[in-house]
């Protein structure tokens, strides 16, 4: 089960509201390479992992990604704080106001709603860990694009923290891929998984 901690993993601050950037950064909330996709991908894949260490890593990174979902939500909240319908219209995000007002919704930067097709689970630990490494790189690239798209130093600071976490997660998944490959090359595997117990 899970327990909520009433704090951010890293501070989320903005210099001033910017609805136009909220419209872009929302992709890390409900986009294909966003934090929700990441969290659900990892927490769902852990059941078919062959070792305790792989289950632990997917549990722990999947949990950290939930903290990142909250950070992106807080960023969108602050970027739209006090914005009126005209501000949304001027930013090209009138559709958001029409359908959700200041409420959050899971979409990418183009308004496409979140879908389960963004995440994969083949039940093959090598395939799934490789997918996870690719996912971390896609999120890293997206954060780099977003950092280029804002001039706000406080927003950049938060995005850089999230960017760095993608790099660390990629590293840990790479190490885990090695560990799982070694485990699967171990001769005992050929006698069937049940022999382990």
């Amino acid at each position, binding site marked *: *089960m899970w*327990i909520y901690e009433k704090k951010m993993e890293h501070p989320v601050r903005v210099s001033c509201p910017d609805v136009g950037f909220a419209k872009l950064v929302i992709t890390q909330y409900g986009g294909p390479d966003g934090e929700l996709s990441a969290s659900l991908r990892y927490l769902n894949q*852990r*059941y078919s992992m062959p*070792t*305790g*260490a792989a*289950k*632990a890593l997917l*549990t*722990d990174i999947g*949990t950290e990604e939930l903290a990142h979902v909250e950070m992106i939500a807080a960023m969108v909240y602050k970027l739209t704080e006090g914005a009126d319908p005209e501000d949304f219209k001027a930013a090209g995000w009138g559709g958001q106001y029409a359908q959700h007002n200041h409420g959050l919704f899971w979409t990418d930067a183009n308004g496409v709603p979140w879908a389960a097709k963004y995440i994969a689970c083949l039940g093959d630990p090598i395939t799934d860990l490789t997918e996870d490494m690719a996912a971390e790189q896609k999120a890293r690239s997206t954060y780099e694009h977003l950092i280029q798209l804002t001039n706000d130093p406080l927003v950049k600071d938060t995005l850089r923290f999230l960017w760095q976490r993608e790099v660390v997660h990629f590293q840990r998944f790479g190490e885990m891929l090695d560990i799982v490959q070694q485990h699967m090359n171990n001769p005992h595997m050929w006698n069937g998984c049940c022999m382990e117990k």
Partner: protein
Amino acid sequence: MEFIVIELNLYLDTHPCDEDALHDYNCAVKMFEKYVKEYQERCAMMFAQGCCAKTDCWDWVEAPWPWEL
């Protein structure tokens, strides 16, 4: 005991000034913390963050997962 904490947590969200419930909540939390401590000393880590690990191994990865029990 954790379930009692959860129930009282939700109840207090809508009845934040109920002193009896606050007292029950605090008692339940104390019991829960005691049981968690005992479990972690006897078995394995229940949380990956916020509690001390054993000095000789990171048993977070070794102990069975909830869906395996």
